[in-house]
């Protein structure tokens, strides 16, 4: 049975497509956005998160694994030696340790998603997100097939940086794509996300030609991708697509900063304020001038 590495299953997800949904977040991402809201999803391999505010330094983890030690009342962790076995997670009485990247079979995932089936009947459904879910497209296909057999609306939330073949695989079983759009300029894109965007834009054009419903999602980060020139370039590109039902503008926030520390990644989160509704509205207005149905998520 095919399985996937995942980080979370979020029930009552109301921001990942229409209606009441359950979203499965898979692990592994092909981008490294500096503002990443889910840094625990980036590497494909499992990794342990330490939620320091919850840690009571009781030392139970150190009893089951030598990677942990409590030194002078401080929790120390040898990440390089960690095999991600998960023993410490079960031992922690405070819920401060969390292993991201556990495996889940298609059947397990399907059972989890079907728990809330009754809520999908009124215009909701399921969403596979990440990370970049299409890095595990084989798993996605099998899971989506099962969901379609149950008559459930399926969405895939992608950053687009995957081989086109991955899209081809899931296309027959996906009702809607949530497609991230960070910025139009390839070099700027590389600076912000670690990769240029030619393939992302190419895939988006191809996807548009298939006629599938696409909702574009733009995280708006002040001082990074909210300049008028950024928005005009985005509008120029997106305005030409035919099957984009909406471009949803989402507000950057730095709530995920503690997660960088938890999983031991260097904190790259921009030190800027979260944009307010008015700021998003200015961006939305620019996009609307390109005949785009721009949605301000703060309104």
């Amino acid at each position, binding site marked *: 049975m095919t399985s996937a590495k995942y980080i979370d299953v979020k029930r009552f997800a109301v921001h990942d497509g229409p*209606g009441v949904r359950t979203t499965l977040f898979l692990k592994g991402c092909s981008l490294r956005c500096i503002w990443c809201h889910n840094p625990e999803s980036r590497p494909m391999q499992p990794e342990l998160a330490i939620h320091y505010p919850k840690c009571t330094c*009781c030392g139970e983890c150190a009893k089951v694994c030598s990677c942990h030690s409590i030194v002078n009342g401080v929790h120390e962790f040898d990440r390089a030696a960690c095999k991600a076995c998960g023993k410490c997670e079960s031992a922690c009485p405070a819920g401060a340790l969390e292993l991201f990247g556990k495996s889940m079979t298609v059947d397990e995932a399907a059972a989890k998603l079907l728990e809330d089936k009754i809520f999908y*009947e009124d215009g909701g459904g399921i969403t596979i997100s990440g990370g970049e879910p299409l890095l595990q497209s084989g798993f996605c296909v099998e899971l989506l097939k099962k969901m379609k057999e149950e008559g459930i609306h399926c969405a895939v939330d992608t950053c687009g940086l995957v081989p086109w073949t991955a899209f081809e695989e899931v296309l027959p079983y996906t009702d809607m794509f949530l497609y991230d759009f960070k910025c139009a300029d390839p070099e700027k894109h590389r600076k912000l996300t670690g990769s240029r965007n030619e393939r992302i834009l190419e895939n988006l054009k191809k996807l548009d030609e298939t006629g599938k419903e696409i909702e574009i999602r733009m995280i708006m980060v002040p001082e990074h991708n909210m300049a008028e020139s950024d928005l005009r370039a985005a509008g120029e590109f997106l305005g030409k697509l035919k099957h984009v039902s909406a471009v949803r503008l989402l507000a950057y926030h730095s709530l995920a900063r503690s997660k960088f520390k938890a999983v031991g990644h260097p904190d790259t989160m921009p030190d800027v304020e979260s944009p307010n509704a008015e700021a998003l509205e200015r961006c939305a207005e620019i996009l609307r001038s390109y005949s785009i149905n721009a949605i301000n998520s703060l309104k």
Partner: protein
Amino acid sequence: MTYAPFDEIRTKLEKQYENAVFSTEDCWDEAKLRQVWDDHRKANPEEDRILSRSFLISLILEHAPVALETFNMFPGKFQHFNLLTQDMNENGWPLAVSKVPGLVGGAPDMELGIGWMVDRSHVAPDWFNLMKLGLPGLIARAEKGTSPFHKSIVMVYKALAEFCRRVAKINNNPVYAEIAEHAPKTLHEAFALAYVLHDAIEFSCEEVRTMGRFDEIYIDFYRKDIAEGRLTRESAKELIKYFWIAFYARYQGKRFGKNFCFGPHFNELSYLGMEVYYEMNTVDPKLSVLVRDDMPQDFAELYARCIRDGRTAIVSLNYDVVVAGMIRHGRTPEDAANFIPIGCYEPAVLGKEISCSGSTHFYLPVMVLSVLKSGKDYATFEDFKVAYLEEIRRVAGIMRERQVLCDLAWKYVNPVPLLSGTFDSCMERGRDMTDCGAVYNTTGCVVSYLADAVDSLSAIRYMVYEKKLCTLAELRQILKDNWQGHEKLRNEVLRQPAKWGNNDPRVDDLAVEIAAFTSDILFHLPNGRGGYFYPSLYGQMVVENGKKIGALPSGRLAGEPASKNMDAVIGMDKNGITALMDSVLKVDMRQFPCGTCLDIMLHPTSVRGDEGIGILVSLIRTFVAHGGSGIQFNIFDAGVLRDAQVHPEKYANLQVRVCGWNVRFTDLDPEAQETFIRQAEAIA
């Protein structure tokens, strides 16, 4: 007559009770009223309780000072000088004690986990009869009988008609003159009649807990007024606002709220009423919406918009499930179809049922403690559970014995002729509704704090039987110590065993079993008024009663708030609201026909915009489609609540759904505020 626009006079209307100015014309002062009443008592020492009560009610309605309030579309205040309450306390209760040996009242017994009382706070008249017959019709019907009961009815309605004439005269208000002489013909007359009867009943010490199905009762008056040009849609809205604000004015949003019911037969007045409700933005009145799957989507969106935007004093009740439960409990299908919620969620047949839905309380976690305290050892968890269920059976029996006496006492304490006269069956039988005059004389039993009970059982199974972390004897000591010195174990118990509200069959199955068992016992338990106990499943007064409940095996510390309604223990529903709803939907709500309710707390970002309205409608419809009964919402951001604690002046309109009613957040005591904040933080 012309009246000021509602928005201009709202503040004044909100203080219509507090600032009432009473006329000194055509009335008696307090001394005279007391003298006449004393003389009457002395001259008639052996008088029938209902006759003497009716004499006093009539005395006040006919002679007490009436308020001058020409600015108000709905005048009708009188000075009662506390005479009615005094009579109940000084004459009614002693009479009851002498007639019903062994009668015990007072606070709930928290050792046993039960409460019982003479419930004077869950009644409603037959609103349709009132509108159809009017006061003269009710009087004429009662004059056909000759019993003391019939005489009482004639007396009080004649007095109420006279009161209307006095109000009309003093306030130069022709509407009140009309309703004294015939059944109401216009919407204004209909509202005025409902209002004066409501207040007269309430001041005679019974709480009218619902004004009935608003859209159904008043639609014909509304249509006729519109057709004949007396009202426009806009002027009707003004009329409704003047009417509704009177109920707010009475308690200033600090009591249980006055219920107005909408549906299930929605009409143009349902839409108009909901629009008014949005515009008024008030904690009181509160609304119940009777939902079926054919509820029009635009109406659903209209009231979901109220909820989204903080007008959360609205409970949605599943019409079909309520009706099915009532039939199962012995109502005919025709009668069950005519239910109204008399109380927060408690359905009773309009004009045919007196359910006294708040009479008895049954606190499920206390019985877990009782089994532990018994000191017996149980070899398996199954044995422990059986002992728990047996304790439920035993305590239910004790509760019944105590409540039966209260049931018998009611007619001596406080007969209610003003209300009974609207009931067909009371008139046919010649009996007051406090004396089994209704067709269905049921006694509510509120089964409470389910989550605390099942989480405790789940914890016992985990600690004592599965992981063997402690024995029952050790657990007894741990609870005695209020978990002090056992922090590590408590931490584990709070995290590890299955908890209610996560769609986890290990604990949900327990809840389903306990619910079914308890319901079955209560269904077959006869009360003292010729009916049966009538179970509901919800928990209120969670802060107050929580203080009286000791530490629990679930890890809850002594005195912490108990779990509300069908909700999870705060912070224990870790899989979100859909999982919570999945758990709740496993309980067959028809086993609790006297009402159940689930609270859903949402962060404002979950329900933003038009999409948010869609989400709310979707949640309500899904809950109803899958057998849920009552559901209500709070839309909170923990940060906003914290700010409201510090700057109450900025949040005058911030409402919270407490249990089956709303108050302003800033009116809550700090402890209750903290409970809501903890819950809001748990969803953030």
